[in-house]
């Protein structure tokens, strides 16, 4: 890469780490990024391995952990891990909400969990259940949200914007507000995992996304987070993530695209020095949107979607309206359909 634009900040070690705790789940989402199964693979890190890893992160001054999956609550030892790390870290948990009972919500509050983020994939049961593949999951997710709020656990709603739910985005905001959450996030659809095979069915054009986002009226008292222009940051400079098998992958959205090493084989901070990891954190990009750079102090937008559509790590992020340059986000490059995508120029290398 020869680009002169780069991120202004460099970290010597991460301050927050995403942990994809398991690749199992009780739902069958058609947009699943982890291609989850019901039964765990024997390759998943054991409880003791996770606890040792978390202690290691604590020793190296990591202060925040985001647990996701799969569905983290689907693995029976998850609460043991949560209790081990809450109050030592800012713990966030991303969940489908369906396994959160009032008792579990009280346990989370008691443990000192910072925030729970619940994926609710539409404003209507029919839409949510279509996307999750499990009838009744909408009602159970909302019951989980209510239980969390009743227990006093800071709770946020997440929506992955796609063709099935785009028309309900405003109603979804109203639902979030009616439930009593204070923050809600609308996320882009990433071309990873199971959703790649359904990309044509689910993906929107950038114009459709921007029109939907631009038309939203955020209810008073609710804060909306979104990662499109002018909030399209390049987060790589601060990102660290480990999947359920112990692979260091930088960011959950890079899970099929990079592999910086296994924490079973080397200390995590050795993977932090992988040349590609360092390159992505440096944030050298061909072009950057000045509005997004100003707001996020990082350049070029998301590297995962830039690479997925252009096959280059320093390419512009086509989800950014200022950098899209005619890229049709409904058409996924064919090389991205493989399990370990490599653009044609580098395939086999």
């Amino acid at each position: 890469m020869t680009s002169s634009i780069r991120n202004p900040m460099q970290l010597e070690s991460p301050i927050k780490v995403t942990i994809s705790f398991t690749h199992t789940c009780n739902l069958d989402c058609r947009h699943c990024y982890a291609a989850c199964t019901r039964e765990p693979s024997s390759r998943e890190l054991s409880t003791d391995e996770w606890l040792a890893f978390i202690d290691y992160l604590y020793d190296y001054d990591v202060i925040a952990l985001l647990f996701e999956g799969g569905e983290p609550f689907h693995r029976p030892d998850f609460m043991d891990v949560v209790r081990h790390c809450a109050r030592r870290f800012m713990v966030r948990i991303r969940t489908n909400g369906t396994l959160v009972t009032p008792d579990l919500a009280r346990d989370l509050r008691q443990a000192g969990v910072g925030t729970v983020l619940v994926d609710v994939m539409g404003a209507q049961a029919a839409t949510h259940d279509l996307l999750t593949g499990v009838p009744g999951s909408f009602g159970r997710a909302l019951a989980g949200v209510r239980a969390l709020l009743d227990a006093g656990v800071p709770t946020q709603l997440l929506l992955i914007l796609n063709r099935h739910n785009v028309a309900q985005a405003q109603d979804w905001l109203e639902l979030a507000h009616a439930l009593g959450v204070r923050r809600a996030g609308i996320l882009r659809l990433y071309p990873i995992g199971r959703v790649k095979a359904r990309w044509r069915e689910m993906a929107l054009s950038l114009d459709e996304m921007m029109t939907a986002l631009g038309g939203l009226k955020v209810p008073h008292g609710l804060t909306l987070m979104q990662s499109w222009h002018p909030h399209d940051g390049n987060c790589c400079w601060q990102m660290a993530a480990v999947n359920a098998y112990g692979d260091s992958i930088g960011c959950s959205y890079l899970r099929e695209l990079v592999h910086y090493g296994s924490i079973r084989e080397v200390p995590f901070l050795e993977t932090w020095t992988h040349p590609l990891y360092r390159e992505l954190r440096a944030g050298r990009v061909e072009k950057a949107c000045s509005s997004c750079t100003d707001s996020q102090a990082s350049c070029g937008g998301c590297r995962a979607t830039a690479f997925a559509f252009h096959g280059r790590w320093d390419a512009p992020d086509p989800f950014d309206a200022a950098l899209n340059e005619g890229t049709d986000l409904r058409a996924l490059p064919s090389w991205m359909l493989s399990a370990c995508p490599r653009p044609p120029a580098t395939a086999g290398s």
Partner: protein
Amino acid sequence: MFRPEPPRLFTLNTSAWLALELCSGRSPGELERAYLDETVPPLDAEVARRRLHDALDLLLANGMIERLAGTGWHAGEA
């Protein structure tokens, strides 16, 4: 900075960060001298004192430090 109870992350400005780094185990007078040693110059001593006390008020109000009886402050775990 992570505050465990209730759990919240804070991004500190440089005044608050320096005050937090210096406060543990120091009496109020020792803390003020240490803070001024680090910041004057370029800051004027009065400006530095004001920044230190503003930072301590903020850290105290948000539960990131506690005042110890008669001795000074104690920083929570980051």
